[in-house]
């Protein structure tokens, strides 16, 4: 990513069709976030009250898990550019671990809520909290599947310094999952 710093391209690295898909996904989340913010404005007390029941510490760890996982994906791409397939494979494996760490922590949170009998119909705040995080959760699962495919492909040696478009595209999708959480974290856990 840094080798051709002087030559700028017109389109983002990776598959353009995938980038269009990423844009569409980001749009969905943007609408959901805006809906949350606007609904909160007319239910401030309710939202503030129930926001304090969320586990901010776990959310922090979750953010770091996703960031670390993304960091390893970037490292994997740098390695492949040096033709170090073995190293790249290891990095991808670590990024998958990061993804799973997120899933496990999030599931712990969900089971805590479930044990308290909270569901989509409990109140408007939980409706948004559960919808948004669960929709994101599904994206994490899809993203991990993408990472696993990339990992298997790298292990088979399908990517090289000259040919690793698939890795860059798949990586971009995983970063998108990260981006969404970076907005979601302050919005739902902190802002009140």
């Amino acid at each position, binding site marked *: *990513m840094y080798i051709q710093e002087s030559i700028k391209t017109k*389109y983002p690295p990776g598959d353009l069709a995938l980038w269009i898909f990423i844009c569409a996904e980001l749009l969905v989340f*943007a609408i959901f*976030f*805006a809906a949350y913010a606007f609904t909160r404005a007319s239910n401030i007390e309710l939202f503030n009250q129930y926001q304090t029941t969320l586990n901010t510490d776990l959310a922090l760890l979750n953010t770091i898990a996703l*960031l670390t996982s993304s960091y390893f994906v970037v490292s994997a791409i740098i390695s492949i550019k040096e033709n170090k397939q073995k190293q790249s494979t290891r990095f991808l494996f670590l990024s998958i671990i990061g993804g799973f760490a997120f899933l496990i922590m999030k599931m712990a949170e969900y089971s805590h809520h479930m044990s308290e009998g909270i569901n989509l119909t409990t109140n408007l705040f939980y409706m948004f909290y559960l919808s948004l995080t669960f929709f994101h959760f599904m994206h994490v699962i899809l993203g991990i599947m993408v990472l696993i495919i990339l990992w298997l492909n790298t292990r088979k040696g399908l990517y090289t310094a000259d040919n690793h478009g698939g890795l860059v595209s798949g990586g971009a999708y995983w970063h998108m999952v990260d981006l969404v959480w970076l907005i979601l974290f302050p919005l739902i856990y902190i802002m009140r």
Partner: protein
Amino acid sequence: MEKSYRTNNIVFTTLVLLTLFTWILGQTDIIGDISEKIDGKEFFLILLSIAIIKVHLIGDFFMHLNTVSGFWRWIITLWAMLTGGFIAIPFLF
């Protein structure tokens, strides 16, 4: 290539630090009630700005948009700013 790893490390560290900062702002038991120190609106603006900066960093470095020029260079940052803007409206007014 050394440079690539170094940039990657710097960006990652910055992201983690910003995340920790966001988290601390939410810890009323550590820093006390935030509303006594700063106005609620400033608080929201700080949090949203941090989020936008983080998204920008990921777009630019992790998603390699710093190698792109023109419209696509800004696509992720633009998304963050628009989303942040829409969120800001009800929080600020």
